[in-house]
Every structure is written in C-alpha cells, then in structure tokens.
C-alpha cells in the first residue's frame, strides 16, 4: 500500500468527485440490498397472510412501493456513480500524465537513454493507465462493500441474530481472504505476463524491422520460430491467469447461494419467523453482489502496485545536472574555455572524456575529428548540461557553466546533431521550439538561410504542414536543413554541430555548408564547434583537433 500512497495524495484536487463516486456506489449497493431484503420479506409475508386469509389487512402498498423505489433508485444511482468515478479517474489520469512529463523532462537524456527510450516510455504510459484501477476498481468497491456489510450486519443483528455470523463469515471469506489470495497468486502471474509480452514484442519488432535481412539470408523461418516460442509462452501466461480468475469466479458463484441457504437455515434455527428468515437469505444474496469487484481488484492489485513502484522510482531519480542554488548572471563575453574535463557515463566504467582541454574564442571555428566512440559527442553533451562531468571546468566569458541556470546555459548553445530530431507537428511549431514568439518573417528568413525555404514553400500547407511520424515525412537532407534553420532561429552565441552532414550526398552537403557560412558571417562574434569526419566540412575550420580515447590531440 505504501507504493500507492503518493497516488492517493495526487488525487487530492479531485477528492470531491472521488467521494461523490464512492457515496453513490455505496448507495447503489445499499438499494440493491434493500431491494433483495424487502422483496424476500414481502412475498413470504404475503404468502403467510394469504394462507391466513388476512390478505386485505396486509399493507402491501408500503412494500410494493419500496420494491419499486429501490429498483428504480438503484438504476439512477448506478448511472450517477459511473459518471462520477470515471470523471474523477480521467481528471486524475490527465494530471498524472503531466506529472510523468514533469518528472521525465529533467531526466533526459542522462536517465532516459535514447536507445531504450521507446520501450521505456511506452512502459511509463502503460503504468499510468494501469493506475486507473486504483481509483475505479480499488477504492470505490471497497467503500461500497464496507457500507453494504455494515448495513447488512445491523439488519441481521436486529431481525435474525443467529444468521449474522454465518452470512458475514462467508462474506468476509470471499471479500477479504479471496481477494488477498487472488492478489498473491496474481502478482507472479502478472509478472510472467508482462515479461513474456515484452519478449514477444521484441521478437515481433525484429521480424518486422529486420525482415529484409532475415529474408535475404534465409533466416526468416528461424525468426518465425523464435516469435512463435515467445508468443506461446505469453499465451500460456494468459492461460494461467485465466485459470486463476476461473477458480475465483467459481468460488464466488457458489458462495453466494451458500450464504443464501445458510442465512435461511440459521435464521430458522434461531427461531426467526418465515418472512424474516427469507429476508436473511436475500440479504446474504444482495451482499454478495459487492464481493465480485473486490476479487477482481485483488487480481489486478499486483499490476497496479508494480506500476506505482516504477513511477515512484522515476519520481525520486535526481537529474544528472541540476540548477545551481543561486544562478550567476549571463556573461557578456562568449569565449569558451574547457579545462581538464573528464566524464564517465552512469553505469559504465570507461571514461568517455579523459582530461579534455579546449578553448573556443569568439568568432572561431574549431573542428574535432576522431573514430566513432572516441568521445566527440560526449563533449557536446557535457557542454549542454546533459551529463555531469567528473572533473574539470567549463567557463563561458569567465563564468563557470555550472553556475548558470540550466535555461541560460542551454540558451548559449544552438545544437544540430546527426539525428536532427523533428517533432511530429507543423513545420512552424518545430521552428518555434527555438524561439516561441518568432514572426513569420523571421521563420522564412531562417529557412532561406538554411536553404530550406524552397521545399517548405512546395509543401501542401507551407509552414502549417504536419511533419514527422504522424504527418508528411521529410527526407534526411530536408530534416537536417530544417534543424539547421531551427538552430539559426535560436540565435545563440555558439553553434554546436555533431556530424551534421552524415549520410547526405555531396551536393546537399555543399548546400548545407554555404548556409552555415552565411549565417556565421552575420555576426563575427559567433563561434562554431563541429564534430565530423567529413573532409568537406574540415576545410571550413580554422583549427582541427583529433579526439582519441577521450583525449584531444592537436
């Protein structure tokens, strides 16, 4: 329960919706109970009166009115309950999603590695969705069942005291012990389910994305066999889950008539009149309507708890680099000095940067070359404050970068890397990431500079064209130029380029470099640090340094 506590607290702003839902749920269950008890008593009493020939004296208006009232009331109450609990849940889930975004944002990329981002994030989304069981299927049914048990106990204690222990005993067995057992066995099964589902997804992705390779080498059948194996394991895990649910349902299905019979038998043995004995039986029947949701809740509790556990773990993860207590003011000069910088990625033992020193004066262009894995990109990640260095200093205009707020620090740099990541939204919104209030003129100016204006103009909706996965796809070269336009728009003192022309053909690469030259020349103080192994780019640099095993060699 400890894991779920923070999420109950998070429900606080919508507590009235939750309370309303729980109250309506309790009233729904109580009207069901009333309906059952009253009908049982009514027809038996009517039977007794009829036999005695005293039918005319029987107050059937009270009883039949009550039966109709309970029946109609229950329908209306249930509708209200469902609206209220769902309203509460979706309000809370909307807030939870944003909360996840808030806690995840500072963790990228150090704790949310790009390589595993997709899997991890879909897991996070599923975890958020799994929490709806907490509000819908856990809290509400428990409150409703408790209310019903309380009222049933009072009724039984007054009218058929001997039936009380029997009925409540069977009920507690089903409403408390059975859900706990279900939770206990459900946890392991749930885990097996999640693991085998993930394995199946991995093999399915391999089959789809690797189909060209698999087929060419004649390995497609082998991959199909691998997929079938894990898919069968998954189906088996689901089968075991079904068995568990089945045992629970069968026990419950039998327990309610058992309580019915026990109620009548015990009440009769206790000397209750026939109508009251019938009422005791029907109360037991009505009470059991509330037990089934509890068992279901028990079955999913494990899943909800482990989802909560993962989200909690994410929430307490500290970002790699945090804002300083009292941020320094932004320096006026743009000279960048790196002194003896070293960096080790979390979870690895090898130093990615090992005593790197470098100075980049205003207006200077420096290129860094080196083999893949030599630490070139790590330098950029350290500058951007994505990872915390182990040692060494980075200063800008004499102010340590670590003394600046993260926002100011990242405003000093405009980054174009080999991914040139674009969001799935309009061209305009993608560009405005760099400058939220950029005017149309500024946008077109940046596009012109980046040699991207022509193809954007040719797009069906111009700047309003949706790009990215959910919209029109742009080619690698076009994406790179849009990313460059975005970097220009940011208008930062230092431009960081990480393999910006990787995979582009020579013509596109040449266009890219002309754009770069033009922009750099618009302010002579601007400097540029580029990481590349392309010869064409190196000719644009004033100095070329080589990175090897985390060290810079001039």
């Amino acid at each position, binding site marked *: 329960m400890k894991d779920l506590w923070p999420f109950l607290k998070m429900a606080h702003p919508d507590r009235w919706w939750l309370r309303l839902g729980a109250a309506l749920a309790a009233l729904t269950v109580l009207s069901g109970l009333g309906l059952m008890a009253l009908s049982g008593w009514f027809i038996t009493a009517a*039977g007794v009166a009829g036999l005695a020939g005293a039918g005319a004296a029987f107050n059937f208006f009270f*009883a039949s009115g009550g039966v109709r009232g309970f029946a109609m009331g229950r329908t209306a109450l249930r*509708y209200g309950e469902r*609206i209220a609990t769902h309203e509460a849940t979706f309000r809370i889930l909307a807030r939870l999603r944003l909360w996840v975004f808030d806690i995840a944002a500072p963790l990228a990329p150090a704790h949310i590695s790009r390589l595993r981002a997709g899997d991890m994030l879909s897991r996070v989304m599923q975890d958020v969705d799994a929490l709806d069981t907490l509000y819908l299927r856990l809290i509400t049914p428990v409150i409703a069942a408790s209310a019903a048990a309380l009222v049933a106990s009072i009724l039984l204690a007054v009218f058929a005291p001997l039936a009380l222990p029997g009925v409540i005993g069977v009920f507690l067995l089903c409403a408390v012990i059975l859900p706990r057992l279900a939770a206990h066995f459900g946890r392991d099964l749930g885990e097996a389910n999640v693991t085998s589902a993930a394995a199946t997804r991995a093999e399915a992705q391999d*089959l789809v994305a690797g*189909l060209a390779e698999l087929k060419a080498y004649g390995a497609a059948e082998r*991959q199909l066999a691998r997929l079938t194996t894990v898919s069968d394991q998954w189906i088996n895990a689901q089968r075991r889950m079904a068995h568990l649910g089945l045992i629970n349902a069968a026990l419950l*299905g039998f327990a309610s008539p058992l309580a019915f019979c026990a109620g009548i038998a015990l009440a009769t043995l206790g000397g209750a009149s026939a109508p009251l004995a019938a009422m005791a039986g029907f109360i037991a029947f009505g009470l059991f309507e509330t037990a089934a949701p509890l068992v279901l809740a028990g079955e999913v509790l494990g899943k909800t708890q482990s989802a909560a556990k993962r989200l909690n773990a994410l929430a307490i993860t500290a970002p790699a680099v945090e804002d300083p207590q009292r941020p320094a003011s932004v320096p006026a000069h743009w000279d960048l000095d790196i002194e003896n910088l070293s960096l080790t990625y979390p979870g690895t033992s090898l130093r990615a940067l090992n005593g790197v020193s470098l100075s980049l004066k205003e207006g200077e262009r420096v290129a860094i070359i080196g083999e893949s894995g030599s630490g070139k990109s790590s330098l950029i990640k350290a500058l951007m404050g994505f990872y915390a260095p182990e040692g060494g200093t980075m200063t800008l205009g004499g102010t340590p970068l670590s003394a600046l707020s993260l926002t100011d620090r990242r405003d000093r740099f405009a980054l174009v890397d080999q991914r040139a990541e674009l969001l799935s939204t309009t061209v305009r919104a993608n560009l405005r990431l760099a400058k939220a209030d950029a005017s149309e003129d500024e946008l077109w100016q940046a596009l012109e500079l980046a040699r991207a204006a022509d193809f954007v103009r040719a797009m069906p909706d111009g700047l309003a064209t949706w790009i990215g996965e959910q919209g029109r796809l742009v080619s690698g070269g076009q994406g790179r130029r849009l990313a460059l336009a975005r970097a220009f728009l940011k208008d930062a003192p230092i431009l960081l380029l990480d393999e910006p022309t990787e995979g582009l053909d020579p013509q596109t690469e040449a266009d890219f470099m002309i754009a770069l030259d033009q922009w750099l020349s618009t302010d002579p103080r601007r400097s540029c640090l580029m990481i590349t192994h392309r010869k064409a780019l190196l000719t644009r640099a004033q100095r070329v340094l080589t990175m090897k095993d985390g060290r810079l060699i001039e």
Partner: protein
Amino acid sequence: MTASPKTQDQAPTKAEIKALMRDWTRAGANLSRLGSLLGILQYAAFAGFAACAAQALNALITGQSPWIALASALGLALLRAGLQAGEVRAGQEAALRIKADVRQRAAKALIAKGPSFAERHDSGALSSALMEGVEKLDGYFGRYKPLMPVIMGAPIVLLIPVFATSWIAGLVLLISLPLLPLFMALVGISAAKASKDQMHVLQRLAGRFQDRLGALETLNAFNAAAREREGLAQGAEDFRLRTMKVLRLAFLSSAILEFFAALSVAATAVYVGFSLLGEWPLAAGTGGEGMTLAKGAFLLIIAPEFFMPLRRFSAAYHDRADAEAAASVLYPLFAQDEAEERGAPHTPLTLHTAPSLRFHSVGSVYSDGRRGLDNLSFDVPAGSITALWGPSGVGKSTALKLLLGYAPLSEGVIEIDGQRLNGTLVGQAAWMGQRPRLFHGSLEDNIALFDPGLNAQRRDEAARIAGVMDFLPQLEAGFETALGEQGSGLSGGQGQRIALARAIALDKKLVLLDEPTAHLDSDSEARFLAALKPAMAGRTVLIATHSQAVREMADQVIDFTALTHAPSREIHG
C-alpha cells in the same frame, strides 16, 4: 505506368472484415460452441436452484421441513457455478487459441509479402498490429462470440418453467425482452458514432504525448519542455472531455437496460404479492391451485436472471467494435496480394559459385508509382567487386533490392550466369541495407542470424575483417553480449560492423552491400576495405556507395549518373 490493380492499402469493406473474422474463428470454433452450450445449461441449473430455494421458503411458512429443498438448492448452485466457470473458461480458451493462430499466420504472411510490403507500412504499425492488434481480438472471441447463442437460448430455457408456473409473469418478461435491444441499439448507435468520430483525435493526442516524451532531449536543448507541457495539458484535457462524452452515452445505454430490467422485476414482484394475498383477480393465470409462495418466490428469483445475458452482452458491446478495428489493421497482411512481389522462386536457384550478372534495360516502378530505376544496363563479371556509384536517389539501392525481389522488376531482364532470373535470390545472397538491424539476442546470434551451424573460426574471421574485434574486448561478455533495443549501448558504427560481419560470415556467393562505410571514419574505412578485398575472393560483390575510397578499391565502377537519368523524387533507402 501500368494500370494498377486494387492495392491492399485501400480500406477493407465491411464484408471483407466479416469474412476475415469468420476465417479466424475456425481455430477455436468447437470451444466457442462448447462455451455457448455450457452458458445455456447454467441457466437451466439456475432455474432448478430457484425452484428448490422457493420450495424451501414455502416449506417454512407451511411448517414442513425445509432441509431437503435447501440441500438440493445448494447442490444445484454448485452445479451452476461449475457450468458458469466452464462457460467462461471455454470462451477464454477459444480466444487464446485464435490469438496464437492469428499471430502466427500474420507473421507468416508478412514473411511471404516481404520487405517491400513492410517498407510501405510503418514498421511500428506493423509490429503493433502483431501485438496489440491480435490482443484486441480477445474480447470478441472470448466473450462476445460465445455469448451470442446464449442470448437467444437462455431466455427460452428460463421462459419455459416461468410460463409453466404463470403465463402472466411469462408474458411480462416476454414483452419486455424485445424492447430492450431496441433501446440499446438506439443509444449504442450514437455511442458508436461518437467514439468513431473521436477515435483519430484520441489517437493523435496519445501519439503527441508519446512523441514529446521521446523527444525530451531535443526539447531540453531548446529549453522548450515547459512550453510543450502547456500544449500537452490542453491535449490531456481534450482527451478527458471527449472520452467522457463517449462514456456518458455508453453508461446511458446500460442504465436503460437496467431500468427496464428493474421495471419488469418490480412488476413481477407486485403481481406475485397481490396474487399471494388473493387480491389479484387473475389468479387463474397460475393454473390449478392458484399462486403459492413456492411459485411466487421462484418467479421472483428468476426474473432478474432473465436479463443477465443481455447485461453481459451490453458489457461486451465494445468487444466487437474493437475486434473489427483490429481486423482492419491486420487486413493488409491477410489480403490476397497481386503478384507484386516475386515470392517463392518457380525454380529454386542455388548459387554454388560466384555468379556473373547482367542487367538489361531494367526498370523498376514501386506500387505507389514511385520510379526506382529506369532503363539500366550493365554487366558484372563473376567474382568481381563492383561499385555502384552516384549521388543518393539515382536508384543504387533499388538495383540491389531488385535481385532479392524487394523492388519490383517492371521492365527489362536480369540474367544470372547467363540464365534469365525468374524468381529471386532470397536466401542466396548476403545483403546489408543502409540501416542494418540488430536483433534481440547475443552478438554471436547477430552474426549467425540464429543459425547454430556457424563455426567459430568463420565467425572470428568475419568479425576480424568487419572490425568487430576492435571493440569486442571492451564488451564484458564478448560474443555473448546481449544486443537488441537497437544496439544497447553500441554506437551506430559498431552496429554497422556487426552487420558487416554477418554479411561476411555467412557463406553466400553473392554479396550485396548498401553504403557499408557510411558510418566509418576514413581510417576505419581504409582498414575495412583492405581487409574486405581478400575476404571476398571467390564471391561476386556489389557495393552501392558514394565513398571515393570504395570506388578506388572496386574492380569496376558503374556510374549511375551516366547510365540513367535521375528520378525526380528523393528516395530513401
């Protein structure tokens, strides 16, 4: 351009979806029928329970012993619980078998249709069709389908004893029955419309959230996370409002159902009560001796159960829509395809020695009308290394894909060892694409592609040539290192070297490499090319490239810019 036949990208019709789902049913048809049978029988057992329980109540007021009736009631309740459990379980088992079968068949179909099909459909969408798409069939085959006969059968099973007890009570239930589906259909239709209208909006909102979470690094680089949050908050609010709109209608439909059920139960109760009191003029409705408590209690216990199958149906109402949506996602995989892919070769071709190749006026037009190649002719001598040279977009990749049947051969002839190529060289050629895939498995699995027959010597030799040995010592588990999740910590260059080792290790006489050195720096590239040349002795090698170093190493260079005029569109891959 040739007149294009119906492509499988068009949305399937309702009838096609229906036929597909009927076809899928077969894997679990008997179980589904068993479930329905048990489902009807459990209501018969319930009628028995109701009769015995009512008898027990009657015994109480007439002073007889209630124990035998109570014990029988309990026994029948036990039987019913068993039948009920069997019904549910049979349905679930049917769904499990159908899901396993559909996933297997979909995967087989995907393999048969090949990479050109996979390329046209987003790879994420295809793997989610195999996962979520198949999972969404669960409710329909497990609950909805077995329930349909129960909806018809259970009321009949219950009505017979009710009519035998009292034709008036029977009539009350009978009349209320057809009214319910009518009202539910009315509400259901508007709910379905609402949910359909919102569906793509909902997807877009969910997709947007995923997209922004995935792009957090870029958002941070631009200090834009806080600004994106506002948009997401708006989206989440929208999502909630639209979901609630759909749910309100769905809840309304079940409230209407419950209302009518409650109404007819209350009517039955009042009728029974009045009859018992002797206040009802039509006591004759119950036959001979008039209303007794045994009859009355029986009617009252049975009345709510009478509506149970319909209530279960309304809870399963969305299962069908879900399954239909999933079926239309899976449909392209199951659709009969026009022979766009030259699937299994008519004459299985095995290359024992390095082949010679001849392209003669070859053209390729993709099914979406994109032209990949136009009028291409060149010769490749057996055992040579040939560089296909030119800027991106001239069709180098298409030329390689043609040999494997991954691109359509629309015009011209390809000859292999002087024989016209009828099928494809799938399974006969080593092929490395521009973005090679790293599979979930060990590094060794990735080189052998799960073939346990690859010997260690070949593996080491291939790993050495491809440069895998350069970084292997840094990996703690060596060849046993687990890869997947697109590489788990390996750089793009390292991944490419593993794919190269794969191409070298498997003893194929024809080797097709698409931009093999794109991620390598010039030193690594030089070392790689120096090692590659001797390793390729006795094989015919085609390399698509725009690297000068590769061009210099090759035995011959086919300059695509000179051979064919470049297509107007930029082509990926």
